[in-house]
C-alpha cells in the first residue's frame, strides 16, 4: 500500500510566522503609494442631534488640504451600508449612511472626510470644521429606548427595530406542569473585539483603466466588493480588493464600515491614491461594539433536575444603526440559549433596540457568550435550589449521541433551523473534570485560604461553524512542479496559509513545501464568502479537497495522452505520473502550460464543535478582586488540521473570554459620551493577567457534514467563560450568598455584592 501523506493532523509551524517574526509582515499601514494623500474623518462629538450645518470653508482654505467631503458630495440618495446577513426589509430604515446627514446618532459618527497632503495637516483641519448640531436627548438605556419619547428614526417612530423569537415544543405547557421554576435577570456589558492594529485602507483609482484597487480588505472581501461596487456605481470586475497581513479580526475587522466606501470615493474624486489609518480612539468609538444584552429568563425543571424548558425575553442594545451583521448576536442569544443541553420546550425572544451608541456587530462567539452566561448561571442556581450536584445535573441534561442530529429551536423572522451534528458531549465533560482535577479541587470550594475565598465551576458549550453557502478553490500545477492554491477564504490571523497548505498537500499527495496558498485578492477566484462563523477551514478546506480531486483527474488525462494509455491506468504520486509497463513522467514535465482545476464546495449544514471548560478562582473579599488560578478546557472539532494553531485559538479565545468576564467594558455616560476611549480605560487582558490556561482539543467524532469531517474551531472556548467564571465566583462566595447576575465581575461590583 502507498504510504499516506500526513500533513493533516501535524503541528506544522505557521508559514506566516517566518515573516511576522522577522518584521516582514505587511500591514495596511505599511502600504504606501507614490503621490498618496491622507484622509482623516471628522466625527460627531454629539450622541444625538439634528445637523444644522457643517461648515467646511475654513478647513478647505488651509494649505495642503485637498478636499473636504460631506454627505452633500456623495449625491442623492446618500449611500448606506447594506445588511450582509439577515437582510430583512423591516431592518432597512436603520442602515447607516456613509456620512451623516439630517441627524447624528452616535459619538464618532462620520460627518466629513478631510483629505490632505499629510495626516498631520488633515488633523489640523479637523479643528476648523464647524459642526452646528442641535442636540437632542441621548437614548442610552433600555428604559428610555422602549419608552420611545425620543426616537432616533422619526420615520420609523420607535426605537424597537425587530423582535427575534426562538421556539421549540410548548413552553407554556412545560412551565405550567414543572415542579421547579426560577426566573432571573442577567446583564452582559458592552465590549468589543479589540484586535491588534486598527483598521485602514489605501485606495487607488486608475482613471484610464477605470479600475479601483483597495488595500486593506479582510474577512469578507468578495461581499464587500459587491457593496462597494454598488455604492460607487462600478461593476464588481472594476474593483480589486487586496488583503494584507492583519493582527486578528474576531468578527469585527473586515465588515463594511463607512470608510470602506469613503476612502475609495475620495481616491476617485481626487484621482490620487488616498490612505487612511484609523487611530485607537476612533477605533474604540466606531468599529463594531458587541454583547450588550439584558436577559429576563426563566428555567423549568423536574424535581430531579431534568430541564424542561426555557422562556423569557432579552433586549440587545444595538447602538445607533444596524450594520452588516448586526442581527447575528441578538438572534443567536435566543437560538443558542439551550446550548448543548436537551431542552424540549423553548420560547425565547430578543428585542433589538436602537440607542445613541456605537453600532454593534459580531464578536467571536456572538450571542453565544451572552447566552451561555445566562444558561450556565441558571443551571448552577437550579442545582443549589434542588440540592443536586452541578456536574451531575449537566451530565443528565446534555444531548446524547443517540439524539443526534439534534434540532435546536427555530428562529423567526428570517426563519432558520439548524441541528447539532453529532458528538459525545458527556465524554468530554468527564474528560474535562479529569484534566482539571475536579475531584481534588472541589474540596477547596468556598474555603478561605490566605485571605482569599476559593471557588470552582464547570460549564458545557457548543460552537457553531461552517456557515454556507459555498466556497471556491482553484489549484494550479505550475510548470515548475509547484502547486498554487487559491482560496476565497480570508486570513484574519488564524494561520490560513498553513492550514490550507496542509489540506492541499494531503489531497494532492504533495509535500508541504511544494504548495503555495494564495488568498490575497478578489482576482484569484470567482467567488469567496470569507472568514466568519468559524467557516474558513471547513468551507475553504473542503473546496480544496474537491479542487484537488478535479486536478488529479485532469493530470491523469494529460499524462495518459503523453504516456499513450487510458487515464484510468495512470497513478499519481507526489511528483510523478506512472502508466502501465513502468512508463513514468515527472509532473513538472507534463505540460508546457500550467494545469489547473477549480471547484466549489457547497454546504449549508453547520458544524457544531463542543466541549467543556472548568475554572478555579480566588476572591479577595476586601478588594473584590477575582484571581483566575486555573482554567482547563476540552473541545472536539471532529478533525484537527493543525493541533498547534488550534491550541493557539483555544488559549486566545479563553483569554478574550476572561477579558469579557472580568475587565472589558465600554462605558457611556447619560449624554451618550463614550468614557472608555483609550486602552488605559478600556482594559484588555495583558500578558501577565491570566498565566495558567490549559486547553486540549481532540478529534473524537467527525462531522458528517463535510468531506474533511472537520468542525469550525475558531471561537469555541470564549463562549462558556463568562458563565463559568461567574459560577466559580458564586461558589467561592457561597458564605456571603453572592450570586453575580451581571458582567463584568469588576472589583467594585464584587465588593458591593459582598456588602
Amino acid at each position, binding site marked *: 500500500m502507498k504510504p499516506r501523506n500526513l500533513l493533516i493532523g501535524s503541528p506544522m509551524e505557521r508559514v506566516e510566522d517566518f515573516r511576522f517574526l522577522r518584521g516582514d509582515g505587511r500591514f495596511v499601514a505599511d502600504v504606501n503609494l507614490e503621490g498618496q494623500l491622507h484622509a482623516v474623518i471628522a466625527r460627531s462629538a454629539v450622541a444625538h442631534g439634528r445637523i444644522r450645518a457643517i461648515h467646511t470653508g475654513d478647513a478647505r482654505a488651509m494649505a495642503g488640504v485637498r478636499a473636504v467631503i460631506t454627505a452633500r458630495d456623495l449625491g442623492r440618495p446618500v449611500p448606506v451600508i447594506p445588511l450582509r446577513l439577515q437582510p430583512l426589509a423591516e431592518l432597512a430604515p436603520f442602515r447607516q449612511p456613509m456620512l451623516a446627514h439630517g441627524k447624528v446618532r452616535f459619538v464618532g459618527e462620520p460627518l466629513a472626510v478631510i483629505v490632505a497632503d499629510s*495626516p*498631520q495637516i488633515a*488633523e*489640523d483641519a479637523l*479643528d476648523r470644521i464647524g459642526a452646528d448640531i442641535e442636540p437632542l436627548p441621548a437614548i442610552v438605556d433600555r428604559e428610555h429606548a422602549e419608552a420611545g419619547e425620543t426616537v432616533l428614526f422619526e420615520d420609523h417612530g420607535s426605537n424597537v427595530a425587530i423582535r427575534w423569537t426562538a421556539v421549540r415544543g410548548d413552553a407554556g405547557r412545560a412551565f405550567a406542569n414543572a415542579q421547579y421554576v426560577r426566573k432571573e435577570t442577567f446583564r452582559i456589558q458592552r465590549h468589543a473585539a479589540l484586535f491588534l492594529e486598527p483598521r485602514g485602507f489605501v485606495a487607488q483609482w486608475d482613471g484610464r483603466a477605470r479600475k479601483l484597487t483597495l488595500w486593506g480588505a479582510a474577512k469578507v472581501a468578495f461581499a464587500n466588493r459587491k457593496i462597494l461596487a454598488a455604492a460607487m456605481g462600478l461593476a464588481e470586475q472594476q474593483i480589486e480588493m487586496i488583503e494584507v497581513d492583519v493582527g486578528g479580526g474576531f468578527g469585527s475587522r473586515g465588515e463594511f464600515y463607512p470608510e470602506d466606501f469613503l476612502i475609495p470615493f475620495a481616491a476617485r474624486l481626487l484621482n490620487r491614491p488616498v490612505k487612511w489609518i484609523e*487611530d*485607537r*480612539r476612533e477605533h474604540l468609538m466606531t468599529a463594531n461594539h458587541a454583547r450588550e444584552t439584558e436577559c429576563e429568563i426563566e428555567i423549568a425543571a423536574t424535581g430531579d433536575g431534568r430541564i424542561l424548558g426555557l422562556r423569557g425575553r432579552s433586549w440587545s442594545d444595538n447602538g445607533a444603526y444596524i450594520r452588516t451583521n448586526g442581527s447575528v448576536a441578538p438572534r443567536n442569544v435566543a437560538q443558542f440559549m439551550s446550548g448543548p443541553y436537551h431542552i424540549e420546550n423553548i420560547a425565547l425572544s430578543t428585542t433589538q433596540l436602537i440607542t445613541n451608541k456605537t453600532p454593534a456587530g459580531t464578536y467571536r462567539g456572538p450571542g453565544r457568550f451572552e447566552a451561555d452566561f445566562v444558561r450556565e448561571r441558571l443551571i448552577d442556581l437550579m442545582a443549589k435550589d434542588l440540592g443536586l450536584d452541578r456536574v451531575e445535573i449537566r451530565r443528565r441534561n446534555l444531548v446524547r449521541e443517540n439524539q443526534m442530529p439534534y434540532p435546536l429551536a427555530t428562529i423567526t423572522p428570517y426563519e432558520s433551523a439548524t441541528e447539532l451534528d453529532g458528538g459525545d458531549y458527556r465524554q468530554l465533560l468527564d474528560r474535562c473534570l479529569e484534566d482539571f482535577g475536579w475531584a481534588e479541587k472541589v474540596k477547596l470550594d468556598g474555603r478561605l485560604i490566605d485571605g482569599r475565598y476559593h471557588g470552582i465551576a464547570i460549564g458545557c458549550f457548543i460552537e457553531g461553524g461552517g456557515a454556507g453557502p459555498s466556497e471556491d478553490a482553484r489549484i494550479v500545477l505550475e510548470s515548475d512542479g509547484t502547486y498554487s492554491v487559491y482560496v476565497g477564504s480570508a486570513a484574519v490571523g488564524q494561520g490560513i496559509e498553513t492550514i490550507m497548505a496542509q489540506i492541499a498537500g494531503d489531497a494532492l499527495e504533495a509535500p508541504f513545501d511544494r504548495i503555495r496558498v494564495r488568498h490575497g485578492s478578489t482576482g484569484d477566484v470567482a467567488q469567496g464568502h470569507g472568514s466568519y462563523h468559524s467557516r474558513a477551514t471547513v468551507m475553504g478546506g473542503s473546496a480544496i479537497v474537491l479542487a484537488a480531486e478535479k486536478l488529479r483527474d485532469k493530470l491523469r488525462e494529460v499524462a495518459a495522452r503523453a504516456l499513450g494509455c487510458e487515464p484510468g491506468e495512470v497513478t499519481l504520486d507526489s511528483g510523478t505520473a506512472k502508466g502501465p509497463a513502468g512508463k513514468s513522467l515527472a509532473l513538472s514535465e507534463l505540460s508546457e502550460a500550467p494545469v489547473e482545476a477549480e471547484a466549489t464546495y457547497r454546504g449549508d449544514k453547520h458544524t457544531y464543535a463542543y466541549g467543556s471548560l472548568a475554572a478555579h478562582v480566588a476572591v479577595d473579599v*476586601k*478588594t*473584590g*478582586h477575582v484571581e483566575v488560578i486555573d482554567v482547563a478546557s476540552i473541545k472536539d472539532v471532529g478533525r484537527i488540521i493543525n493541533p498547534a494553531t488550534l491550541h493557539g485559538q483555544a488559549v486566545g479565545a479563553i483569554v478574550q473570554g476572561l477579558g469579557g468576564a472580568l*475587565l472589558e467594558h465600554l*462605558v457611556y*455616560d447619560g449624554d451618550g459620551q463614550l*468614557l*472608555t476611549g483609550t486602552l*488605559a*480605560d478600556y*482594559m484588555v*487582558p*495583558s500578558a*501577565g*493577567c491570566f498565566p495558567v490556561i490549559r486547553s486540549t482539543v481532540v478529534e473524537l467524532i467527525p462531522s458528517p457534514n463535510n468531506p474533511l469531517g472537520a468542525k469550525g474551531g475558531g471561537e469555541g472556548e470564549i463562549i462558556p467563560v463568562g458563565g463559568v467564571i461567574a459560577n466559580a465566583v458564586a461558589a467561592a462566595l457561597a458564605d456571603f450568598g453572592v450570586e453575580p447576575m451581571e458582567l463584568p465581575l*469588576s*472589583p*467594585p461590583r464584587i*465588593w*458591593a455584592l459582598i456588602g
Partner: protein
Amino acid sequence: MKFPDFDYACPKSLDEALGLLRLHGDDAVLLAGGQSLMPLLAFRLAAPGLLVDLKDVPGLGDIGIDGGGVRLGAFVRWCEIDRNAGLAAAHPLLVEAIGHVAHYQIRNRGTVGGSLAYGDPAAEMPGIAVTCDGEIIVMGESGERRVAAADFFLGALTTCLRPGEIITGLHLPPWPAGRRWAFEEFARRRGDFALAGTALYYDLDSQGRATDAHIGVIGAADRPMRLAQAERMINGSTVNADAIAAAAEAASREVDPMEDFHAPTAYRRALVETLVARALTRAAG
C-alpha cells in the same frame, strides 16, 4: 492622534533651558520622558509651540545617597531606580513604591521630575514625596527654591510650580535603620494607575512603641495626602491588631476619594481602609 506642529529645542545647560522658557513663555513646555506629555499632544489636549527637552541638561540624571538622605535628579527614570544598588538600602519604601509604576516600556522613559510636575493624584512618586517629608527642588529665574512636598500639590494635575520654573530634583530625608514600613496598592492590572494605595512607615522607641508614624495615600483624594488621624492611632501604640484596625478605620474617614466610572467613592474609601490595615500588618510583622 497626530501631534500638532511644534518646534523642538534640546538645551545643553539648565541656564539655557531657563532662558528658553523665559523667551517663549506659555508657548514652551518642558519634555522629560514624554509618557504623559506626548499622549496630551496626540489627543490635541495641548498644543505648545516649543518642546524643551531636558535630556541633555547635565546633572539632572544623578542619584545621590549620603548621610543627608537621598537626592533624585529630575531626569532619573523609573528603571534607574530599579537598578540602583544603593537605593534599596537607603530608601526601601521608595524602591518598592516605584516598582508599581506603569509598564516596562514606560518605565524606561518616565521620570521623577515629570511625574512630580504632572501631579497625578494616583501617582506613586508624588505619594512617596508627600509621605516621606520630601522636598522638591525647583530652579527659576530668581534662583533655587525648595518646596515641601506637602505644599507642592494643589489639586488634581495642579502644582505650585510657577511659569518658567524647572524641577531639578527631589530630596528625601535619611532613612534610619530599623524603620518599619510598607507599601500597598490595588490596581486592576499590574502597571495600571492604582485605584488607591498607601505608603507608610514608623520608628520604634526603646519600649517598642511606634513613633513618628507617616501614613500617606494615593488615589484617595485630589492629591497625595498624609492621614493625621490614622498616624495618631499608631503613634505610641505597639501596632497591635486593635491599633491597626483603629488606624485603618480612621484612614477611611479622613480620605476624600473621587468617584469615576472605574470605582465609586464608597469603594475607594473601603479600599483605603483595607490597604492601610494590610500595610500596617506587614510593617509590624
